[in-house]
C-alpha cells in the first residue's frame, strides 16, 4: 500500500478524531488554479467510501483557507480564512455554522484545545491572537477574547499549539524569531524561547511549535530558516537552551511538525525541501525520509486515532495519505527486474508510474507503540496446558489450569 489516497488539490487539511478517520480539505490561500478560479471549497473525504475519489460532501467557503482544524469531539471544523474571518462548519450537516471577522488581517492558523472541545485559538498577521468559544459563536454580537499581554513585540503568527495537559497553556510562533508560551490564567506570555544557530551565528527563526503529547514542559520548535533548518526539543524547566537538536534531516526551512499523540517517540516534519520525515525526537534520530514531492510540503499530520496513516499537503496540487511503513517487497524487486528488461519506449511510458511507486528511505526500523502484543497472550497447547507471557513481558509460564466440572474434556486432550 504505497498511498492510500491522493487528492488533486492544493489545500490545507484536517483529520477527524475517529478510528476510521475522515479528512477535510480546504482550498489553500495564496495559490492559483490552472483555471485561475477564486472559488474556495471545504470538502470531506472518506478512505472507505465506495467511491474514494469523490468527496462525501462539499461546502462553499467565503475565502481561501490558510489553515483548518477539527474539534476533538468531531462536531466542528474551523477554517482560518484569508479574508480575516474564522469560519465554523458542521461536518455532519455539511453547512457553515458561523463566520466571524475579528482579525483585521488574514488568519494564518488555528487550533482546537484537546481538553476543552469548544475552545479554539486563532493567530494571524500582525501578532493578532484570539481565543474562541464555539458554544457561543452563534450568539449575536459574540466576540473572541485576547489571551493577554505579550512580553515582546510579536510579529505574524504562523503556528499555534495547545499544551496537552494544561488546557490553559498554549504556544505561538511566527516571524518574530521567538516562540512564545502563553498562560490564559495569568493572562500573559509567560516564557519565550529563542535560539542562536551555531551554523549561521544568527538568531534562528522558530516558526513552528508543537507540544509533547504527555509531558507538559516539553515542546518542539521547527526552524523556518533555509540555512539551518533544525527541529529543537525544549524542556521549559530550562528554557535557555534546547535539550535536543534534530539536524541532518531537512535541507530547507521546516513548515510543519506533528508529535504523535499515541507514541511520544514519533514525530513528523515537512518543509520547503519538498520532503516529509519521521523522527524519534527523544533520541534525535531520523527514522524515515519519505519520497520527495514536487513542491513545498506545507502541512503533515498523523491521523490522530489511526496514526499508522498520515496526510501531507504540498503546493504541487497534491494531498497524499500514506502509511508510515512502505517497505520494499519481493514483488517490487520482480517489477524492477521486469522494468530493466523492457524496451526504450516501454521505459518512457512507465517512467511516471515508477515515480509514484518510489519507496521511503528507512534509516531505522522502529515499531510504533501501538504494535505488538501487550498481554499475557495465553494460548492453549496439547494436554490442557496453557502457555502465557508473565513477569511484565519478560517470562513465559506453562500451567495446567483446573476447571471445575470439565476435567473430563482435559483428559481427552491428553
Amino acid at each position, binding site marked *: 500500500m504505497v498511498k492510500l489516497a491522493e487528492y488533486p488539490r492544493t489545500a490545507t487539511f484536517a483529520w477527524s478524531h475517529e*478510528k476510521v478517520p475522515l479528512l477535510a480539505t480546504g482550498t489553500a490561500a495564496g495559490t492559483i488554479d490552472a483555471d485561475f478560479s477564486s472559488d474556495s471549497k471545504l470538502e470531506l473525504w472518506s478512505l472507505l467510501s465506495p467511491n474514494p475519489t469523490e468527496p462525501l460532501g462539499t461546502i462553499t467557503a467565503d475565502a481561501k483557507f490558510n489553515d483548518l482544524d477539527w474539534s476533538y469531539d468531531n462536531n466542528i471544523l474551523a477554517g482560518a480564512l484569508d479574508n480575516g474571518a474564522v469560519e465554523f462548519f458542521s461536518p455532519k450537516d455539511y453547512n457553515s455554522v458561523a463566520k466571524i471577522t475579528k482579525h483585521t488581517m488574514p488568519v494564518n492558523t488555528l487550533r482546537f484545545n484537546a481538553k476543552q472541545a469548544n475552545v479554539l485559538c486563532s493567530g494571524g498577521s500582525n501578532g493578532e491572537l484570539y481565543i474562541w468559544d464555539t458554544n457561543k459563536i452563534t450568539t449575536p454580537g459574540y466576540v473572541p477574547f485576547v489571551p493577554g499581554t505579550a512580553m515582546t513585540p510579536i510579529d505574524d503568527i504562523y503556528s499555534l499549539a495547545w499544551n496537552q495537559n494544561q488546557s490553559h497553556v498554549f504556544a505561538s510562533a511566527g516571524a518574530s524569531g521567538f516562540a512564545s508560551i502563553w498562560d490564559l490564567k495569568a493572562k500573559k506570555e509567560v516564557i519565550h524561547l529563542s535560539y542562536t544557530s551555531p551554523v549561521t551565528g544568527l538568531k534562528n527563526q522558530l516558526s513552528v511549535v508543537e507540544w509533547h503529547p504527555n509531558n507538559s514542559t516539553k515542546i518542539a520548535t521547527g526552524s523556518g530558516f533555509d540555512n539551518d533548518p533544525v527541529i529543537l526539543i525544549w524542556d521549559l524547566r530550562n528554557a535557555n537552551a534546547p535539550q535536543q537538536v534534530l539536524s541532518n534531516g531537512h535541507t530547507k526551512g521546516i513548515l510543519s511538525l506533528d508529535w504523535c499523540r499515541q507514541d511520544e517517540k514519533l514525530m513528523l516534519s515537512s518543509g520547503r525541501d519538498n520532503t516529509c520525515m519521521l523522527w524519534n525526537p527523544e533520541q534525535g534520530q531520523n527514522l524515515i525520509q519519505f519520497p520527495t514531492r514536487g513542491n513545498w510540503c506545507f502541512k503533515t499530520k498523523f491521523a490522530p486515532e489511526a496514526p499508522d496513516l498520515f496526510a501531507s499537503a504540498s503546493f504541487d496540487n497534491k494531498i497524499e495519505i500514506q502509511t508510515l*511503513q512502505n517497505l520494499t517487497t519481493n514483488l517490487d524487486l520482480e517489477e524492477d527486474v521486469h522494468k530493466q528488461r523492457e524496451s526504450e519506449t516501454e521505459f518512457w511510458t512507465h517512467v511516471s508510474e515508477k515515480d509514484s511507486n518510489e519507496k521511503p528511505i528507512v534509516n531505522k526500523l522502529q515499531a510504533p507503540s501501538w504494535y505488538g502484543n501487550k498481554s499475557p*497472550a*495465553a*494460548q492453549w497447547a496439547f494436554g490442557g496446558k496453557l502457555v502465557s507471557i508473565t513477569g511484565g513481558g519478560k517470562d513465559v509460564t506453562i500451567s495446567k489450569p483446573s476447571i471445575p466440572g470439565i476435567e473430563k474434556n482435559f483428559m481427552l486432550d491428553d
Partner: protein
Amino acid sequence: MVTISNAHTELIHDAVLDYYGKRLATCSSDKTIKIFEVEGETHKLIETLHGHEGPVWQVDWAHPKFGVILASCSYDGKALIWKEENGRWSQIAVHAVHSASVNSVQWAPHEYGPLLLAASSDGKVSVVEFKENGTTSPIILDAHAIGVNTASWAPATIQDGPNPQQLRRFVTGGADNLVKIWKYNADANTYLLEDTLEGHTDWVRDVTWSPSVLLRSYLASVSQDRTCIIWTQENNQGPWKKTLLKEDKFPDVLWRASWSLSGNILAISGGDNKVTLWKENLEGNWESAGVVDQ
C-alpha cells in the same frame, strides 16, 4: 508449572508450544526467536534464531508431518520459515510480499499442505505454499483498508450437499473494526470474501476459529473496544449470529483469544495482565471458567 524467566532482553510478544508440547518457541522485540526444550518441570534453551530486522510479533509451528518447521513474522514486513534438521536450525525461506509489519502468521490445517497465512498492516493478507523446491506464487488479497491485525484458519471441513467438497476458509480482523470471512474458490485459485461481520467499535486485535468440527462454527474476536464477540454459524452456511461474551466491558483492551484444542474453553488475555477462561453452558450462554493466576 514451568516458568522461564528473562527469556529475552526485551518484551516477549508470543510463546507457542509445538504439537507434542515438547518444544517452546518465543519471540520478542529483541528481534530474536528462542527455542526451548520443555520436559516435565524443567526447560533448556536450545537455540536463538537471528534473522528479523525488527520486533518479532508471532511464531507458529507447522504440523510435524512436514518436519520441525517454524514460521515467524515481524515489523520488518517479512515472514521467515525456519527448519531444524539433525539438531541444526536454519532459515529455509523468506516470505517478503508485504510492504508493512506482518502481524500474524498461521499454518493451515495440515490436510491442505504446508500453507501459510500472513496478515499485514499494509491492508493485505497472503497465503503461500512452501514446497520442497521453493514456494508457489502467493495469493495476495486486499482485506482491511487500514491494516490487518490477525488472520486464522477454520478447521478442515467438508461441506455437505450433493457434491461434498473441501470448505477451505479463514477469518481476518482489522483496524477498520471489522471481521471478515474468506472462502477458497478453486476455479479462480483465490479466496473470496464470504461475509463481513460488524460489531466492534475499535481495532480487532485477534480473531480465532474454534478447532472443534461440529455442525456449528464458532469464532471469537477480541478488540481494543474491550469486548469479545462470539460469532456462530450453523452448518457452515447462512448468517453469523453475534453474542457478546459478557455484556459489560472488560477492564482493559483485549489482545488475544485462544480456544482449547477440544474447542470448549476459551482463554482471553487483556492489557490488564489477566487471563480469563470461558465456557458455554447448556443454555448457550457464556460463563466464567476461572481466572488464571499470573
